[in-house]
């Protein structure tokens, strides 16, 4: 599924990723944990092609296809979805319009027919209800005036509508209260599937109580410094990141 080999990346001239190697097979959920400044968000942006990040060495591929050679929208059409830590507000573009535009752009890129309006609305109603999102909210400007929790739910709704192959969740738990965290986690868990992989980036172990990972990796100073089973997350919660930041430095 997702294969990252010796990935190096810089922002400006500053090296942030210094040789990340990671494999996430289809059907698995891997968590990336690490202290602030370890390069967690950088990894998610490099994988999705955001401007300002330069890959200086290494590779990243999805099902054997080189991601780094593709435009951000092409990567999305191949099935890469990033749930943003801070989802953008898009005034003047209703959420429904935005999602439908995205879905149809992806379908066109894959040579598929566009989705018909009635089928799209039916799907949107169904998915919104599952995430306890008031359908009327989807007629307003995307994320405009939404609370942190509402924005995160809107990310999960987009995920459910676009049905990507590989999900990257960047600090999806930040700014969520317990109720919102449960709803969001249920939404993510509903997307677990044998042909779908997930990378869950988080600072805290809390999210991993709800979205149970198959593997946990520790990212510190731009490298994966430790990997293990779900128990590693609990160990980090108890001991902190000190031992890794010291070791990485």
């Amino acid at each position, binding site marked *: 599924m997702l294969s990252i080999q010796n990935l190096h990346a810089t922002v400006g001239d500053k090296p942030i990723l210094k040789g990340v190697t990671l494999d996430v097979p289809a059907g698995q959920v891997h968590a990336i944990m690490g202290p602030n400044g370890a390069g967690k968000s950088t990894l998610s942006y490099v994988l999705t092609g955001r401007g300002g990040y330069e890959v200086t060495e290494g590779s990243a591929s999805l099902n054997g296809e080189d991601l780094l050679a593709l*435009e951000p929208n092409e990567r999305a059409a191949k099935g890469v979805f990033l749930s943003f830590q801070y989802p*953008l507000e898009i005034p003047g573009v209703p959420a429904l319009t935005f999602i439908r535009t995205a*879905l149809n752009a992806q379908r066109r*890129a894959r040579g598929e027919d566009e989705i018909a309006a009635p089928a799209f609305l039916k799907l949107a109603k169904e998915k919104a209800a599952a995430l306890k999102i008031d359908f009327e909210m989807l007629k307003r400007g995307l994320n405009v005036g939404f609370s942190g929790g509402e924005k995160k739910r809107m990310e999960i709704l987009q995920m459910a509508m676009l049905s990507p192959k590989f999900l990257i969740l960047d600090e999806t738990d930040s700014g969520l209260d317990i109720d919102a965290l449960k709803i969001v986690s249920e939404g993510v868990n509903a997307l677990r599937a044998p042909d779908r992989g997930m990378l869950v980036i988080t600072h805290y172990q809390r999210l991993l109580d709800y979205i149970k990972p198959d593997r946990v990796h520790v990212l510190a100073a731009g490298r994966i410094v430790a990997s293990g089973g779900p128990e590693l997350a609990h160990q980090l919660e108890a001991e902190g990141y000190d031992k890794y930041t010291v070791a990485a430095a």
Partner: protein
Amino acid sequence: MTLALALKTGDLTQLPSRRDEDWRWTDLRGLIRTAPPASPAFDGEIAPGPFDALAADTILFVNGRQRHAAASGAGDVVALRFVSATEGAGHAATYAIVVEPDTTLVLLESHEGQAAGYMSDVTLDIAVGEGARVERIVLVDDHAEAIDIVTAEVDLAPGATYVQTVLTSGARRQRVETRVNHPGAHANVRLDGVYVLDHQRHADQTTVVTHGGVDGVTGQLTKGVVTDQARGVFQGRIVVQPGADQTDARMGHHALILSDKAEVDAKPELLIFADDVACAHGNTIGALDDEAIFYARQRGIPEAEARAMLTQAFLGEVVERIEHDGARAIAAAWVAQRLGRAQ
């Protein structure tokens, strides 16, 4: 060489003289030694005409201004078209509109270039009676080589409502100016604008709102998108005269510049001579938000489509404020079409 031009410019050499073959026996230039002042707008009562009883609709010119007397009753929609149809020719028109107290008028005004390189000058006088309500939509669609000046003098009575949206795509030189006499007294004004400019087009949207009495409200939102070497100009002046307390005036102008050589010049002015007023203006000029573009692309929307979507949404905020449903739909389609050309 016409009288109208000479009257308009005060330049007597513009008058036809006996050296002009068609005027050789009716010399005006030899006759008129000083230019008269322009006739003022006349909003007062006019005595009934001789054929009023025979006509269903009457178009009345007063002091050189054609006057539309809005029918009483709600929902009066009037289309007002100014068409320039001759290449290289210049013309001026004036028109006066009197909106009777407690009536409503939707004025759908279009300036249409159907030839190249013309000059057009249109002056409107709009008098809005007590408690009356006017929505004016102005769509200015000129030829790239045209010179077009549109000026409206709007005079409001107490309790009147005047809302306006000007949509322009520029010309070689183009200016749409609106001057509002605001009496306060719960009169309510909204002046909005949209400009979409490409190539070397120039558009100027100028407004002057003068608050003369207490309790007046003015809201303004103008947004523009410029690309290539186009130039947008926004001048918004709000004057609050002494004694015009409790005035609430808010002005916003926001522009997107999509190319290195495009230009936007903005001059918001608040001239406040009264106490206890709420006045504010906001003015921003910049590019599209890169983060928003990346967000849309991450969801699969190609860059050009993302830019078009965000640009249209940017202008959509103004278009959405148009109250008349049909006019709003036409304005939205026009903006989409112009943006498609400008991208």
